[in-house]
């Protein structure tokens, strides 16, 4: 592999981590959705580049799914939901932005240390991709735990899935079965979520999960 193609792969995977960081400090829902679209776009570029350098044409399919479905359709639908529910107001974050960013940096450092130590013999592209992928995964998790709004939790979950796709494409020759299934699972997940949002709306007139928390635990 030439050093240029390696550098570009590195750049794109690193870009995905950066966009994950951007998600952490978005305090408006519509901005968060836009950042998610950007996230999916960077993922598309990264996957397409992997398809190019690995000579693996089937990865273009994954890239196309990422572009069409995740970068375009889902953000549009989410914007629609948000508008319809009239929740353009600020997102309430459970923890402040400062501590969240610090926690995010800690998580990235953690995943670098873990993966780079463990895989000295693996091929360099795979191991760097893997460490970036784990970072994206953990940052997605962080988005999920620091938000109280159902829509932003879903976005956190979808960015986490993007990290998984990055890992799967970084693993050279990983069977297509898995990529399709990942894309498929996102579709299913989205349907589930759609139904849930619909139902939550139907019952509570809010998608703030905090409103559900009052029913936590034992019935008294």
């Amino acid at each position, binding site marked *: 592999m030439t050093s240029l193609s390696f550098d570009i792969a590195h750049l794109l995977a690193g870009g995905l981590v950066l966009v994950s960081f951007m998600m952490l400090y978005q305090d408006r829902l519509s901005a968060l959705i836009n950042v998610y679209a950007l996230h999916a776009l960077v993922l598309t570029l990264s996957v397409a580049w992997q398809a190019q350098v690995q000579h693996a044409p089937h990865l273009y399919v994954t890239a196309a799914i990422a572009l069409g479905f995740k970068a375009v359709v889902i953000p549009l639908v989410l914007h629609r939901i948000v508008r319809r529910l009239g929740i353009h107001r600020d997102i309430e974050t459970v923890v402040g932005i400062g501590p969240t960013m610090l926690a995010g940096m800690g998580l990235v450092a953690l995943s670098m240390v*873990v*993966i780079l*130590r*463990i*895989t000295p*013999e*693996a091929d360099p592209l*795979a191991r760097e991709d*893997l460490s970036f*992928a*784990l970072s994206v*995964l953990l940052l997605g*998790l962080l988005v*999920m735990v620091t938000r109280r709004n*159902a829509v932003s*939790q879903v976005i956190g*979950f979808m960015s*986490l*899935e993007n990290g*998984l796709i990055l*890992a*799967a494409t970084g*693993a*050279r*020759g*990983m*069977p297509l*079965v*898995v990529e399709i*299934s*990942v894309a*498929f*699972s996102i579709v*299913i*997940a989205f349907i*589930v*979520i759609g*139904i*849930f949002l619909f*139902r*939550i709306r*139907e*019952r*509570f007139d809010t998608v703030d*999960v905090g409103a*559900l*928390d009052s*029913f*936590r635990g*034992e*019935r*008294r």
Partner: protein
Amino acid sequence: MIAIPFQPEIAVLVIPVVAAAVLAALPGYRIAARLNVLASLLTLLAALSLFVTKRPETGTYLFVDDLNIVFIVLNTFVGFTASLFSASYIAHELETGRLTPANLRFYHAMYQIMMFGMNLAFVANNIGLMWVAVELATLTTVMMVGIYRTHEALEAAWKYFLLGSVGIAFALFGTILVYLAARPHIGEGDDAMIWTLLVEHAAVFDPALLNLAFIFLMLGYGTKVGLAPLHAWLPDAHAEGPTPISAVLSGLLLNVALYAVLRFKILLAANPDAIGPGPLMMTLGLLSLIFAAFMLYRRRDIKRLFAYSSIEHMGIIVFAFGLGGPLANFAGLLHMVMHSLTKSAIFYAVGHVAQVKGTQRISELRGLTESHPALGWGLLVGVVAIAGLPPMGIFMSEFLIVSSTFAVQPLLAIPLVFGLLVAFGALLLRVTGIAFGEPTGSTAPAQASYVPLFAHLALVLAAGLYLPSALVGWFQHIAGILG
């Protein structure tokens, strides 16, 4: 006409899918419930025929070996009895208006898709396919937990969905790591995800990668097993969904995730340089056991009580498999089967009790043996069994686990026995209040089907009294595979 050879491992997948398609289109709920039972029965028969037909050749995607036969047969059996229970349960839900006919159509179709997902997870020979199947089974149960659309049901389903997705994401990451470990030795593509090939070559894999993979897999699938501290979804999902689903969750879905953990444990054991999976499993198992045992004391909701009891028992089972060795594995396997049968029987009883009394609150359930003798005594016997009293089967498996712990790691037997005793006390304390005393609430006769309840309890009792030597030999053989 060409005769298509009967392949049971295909049949256990095709029957549920066809049934789901038909059920989704069928408007009448009576006929749908019957068809659900029929489809589950056919699946069970197909699973049983695995014993007599020739073992199919190991394929790229599907395979059958001694380990997964146990799981498939148990799964389809409890799936069948749960469908019987469900038929009598949902009729009542429809009368009280908690569910609409449209809900029921959805419910029955989902039930069969869930059975398909679980069976697929068992017969999958490809670790990617297994992951997809576990995820499918999870998503269908999420939908069913939320089916009542109450505040509590929605919150339970949402929590289950979020925690389950995080778990499943970790499991996929672990699966990718296993592929990366296998690729240099098996080659690129499908082959490096085939479980049977992985085990053959596991000895030369990079141990560090395997270790990391197992930690992710253990956390991911462990969330599904309901191990503390990743159990938060489990009590809510059990308490707020329809009771047939609580029975299936406890009796079957937890086993599916456990099966995935066991598969990867075997993989790790085949590599001499990788960490032993035992200590991690034993720690999580003991933690779950003791945590859940104490949580049992403060439950007010009867379904939550038994949900925590499921966490406790999954802890015991994971501990036993973590301990390893022929005896502990044998005991773990036996305990898993006994727990599935007993716990689903308890939920069958609890479901009818909650319907008759119109409440799940323990404080409002009194004197059941007087007002509803069959249900009351059935529940009492079930709880006596789950608490681990002789002569029921769980006593035997717990006894074997404790004695094998004494043989291998005597010190670990102390927290184990402590946890068992604490849980025992809590369960008996609660059940005496529910079963005896002055009856409260409605005394109207229950429209219940007692067959599934007592069939399970009879099996558990029979296993406690006498285990056929063929069964013992078979389980010992599997315990040997598990290492």
